[in-house]
């Protein structure tokens, strides 16, 4: 039998973690419980975070949003300000899992699961999201970009919990694009995904482009070369094709049951061509 603890607030969580330093924490359970069943895990201590009010909810201030790590995707998608201000994230959320999965699964869970195919990761990457990692005695802020070190591996230390996600409003980015290629619309693990923020001048010249791909490397893939190739140019098919070629070189996809590496690289790079549409 596994023990399961259900803390109601952060002080209770810290005391549970102090007594059970080996405990695994989960929120929606849509990843951890599947893994545990596959491994027939037994004699573990689990801590379910879903009842901790401090970890749930969305707060907006002048510069952006503070999102509690245990906020469900449904909650985020139903938030009009998130949809309006950061559509690149909202679009990604609407492709994630299925309605019941979105009712259960949380943004913090998607980040900490650290899957190469995590649908929120490319948008959070281009948005320069920061993560607040907390322990009983304090907290530290780390950028999402360095947080995931390998598939399933993060910078979280023992006893540390991801509590908040900080997203600044992307001011002036006219294009906020997200696209995912899967085998079907719902309940599909991404074969490739791409999030892009593009800032253009009134004359249509690209001032800044931030682009990140999912499912084409051990974690989120970026291509400074492709971003540089776009900067200073006018959005056009030829410019995007040149950048797509450079982007393909930054990717390190794998063959698996969903797609071949060759297909992944080609389709992921070609997603860039949709930015202008």
């Amino acid at each position, binding site marked *: *039998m*596994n*023990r*399961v*603890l*259900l803390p109601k607030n952060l002080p209770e969580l810290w005391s549970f973690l102090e007594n059970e330093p080996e405990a695994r924490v989960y929120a*929606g*359970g*849509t990843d951890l*419980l*599947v893994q545990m*069943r*596959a491994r027939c895990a037994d004699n573990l201590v*689990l801590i*379910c975070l*879903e009842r901790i009010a401090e970890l749930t909810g969305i707060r907006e201030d002048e510069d952006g949003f503070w999102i509690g790590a245990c906020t469900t995707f*449904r909650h985020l998608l139903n938030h009009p300000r998130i949809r309006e201000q950061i559509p690149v994230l909202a679009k990604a959320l609407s492709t994630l*899992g*299925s*309605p*019941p*999965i979105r*009712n*259960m699964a949380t943004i913090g869970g998607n980040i900490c699961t650290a899957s190469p195919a995590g649908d929120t990761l490319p948008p959070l990457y281009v948005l320069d999201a920061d993560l607040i990692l907390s322990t009983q005695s304090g907290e530290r802020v780390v950028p999402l970009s360095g947080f995931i070190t390998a598939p399933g591996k993060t910078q979280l230390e023992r006893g540390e919990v991801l509590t908040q996600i900080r997203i600044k409003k992307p001011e002036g980015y006219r294009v906020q694009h997200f696209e995912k290629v899967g085998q079907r*619309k*719902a*309940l599909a693990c991404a074969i490739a995904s791409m999030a892009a923020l593009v800032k253009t001048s009134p004359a249509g010249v690209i001032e800044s482009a931030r682009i990140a791909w999912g499912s084409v490397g051990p974690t989120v893939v970026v291509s400074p070369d492709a971003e540089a190739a776009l900067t200073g140019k006018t959005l056009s098919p030829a410019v995007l094709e040149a950048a797509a070629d450079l982007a393909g070189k930054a990717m390190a996809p794998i063959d698996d049951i969903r797609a071949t590496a060759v297909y992944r690289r080609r389709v992921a790079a070609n997603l860039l061509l949709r930015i202008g549409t």
Partner: protein
Amino acid sequence: MIIRFVLNGEETQIDCAPDRRVIDLLREDFGLTGIKEGCGSGECGTCTILVDGENRLSCLMLAVQLEGKSITTIEGLAGENRQHPLQEAFIRCGAVQCGYCSPGMILAARALLTENPEPTREQIREALSGNLCRCTGYQKIVDAVEAAARAMQKQKEKAG
């Protein structure tokens, strides 16, 4: 451990292992076999239950998570001696073939209609996209949800 929750409108409590899956608890200890297990990993929707009105997957919930919640299963959807309009519509429209997905489909549709009483066909498809059916091809299920939405609107107008 003792877990207290509301099951199909009735206050209930049970002494069980905290890590028991909710699907096993409801099927085996409460005999609510309308809930089905398909994949056991959150990909098929046959184990759908309503948790405080929201459709969730009982194969990915542990017993402790029931504490204080209000749970509705297919057995609790209808009134006494009467089918719910969704159940009637599923039968009338031929939306049931083998029947394995029906409880989950109907509960997911119930959650949709509570939030959006007049959904478009596209919205119905989207709302049911976490529930797989291997028999019907989905057309008749979408027909049934549309028909039920109309019937429920009519009921409301009559009552109002």
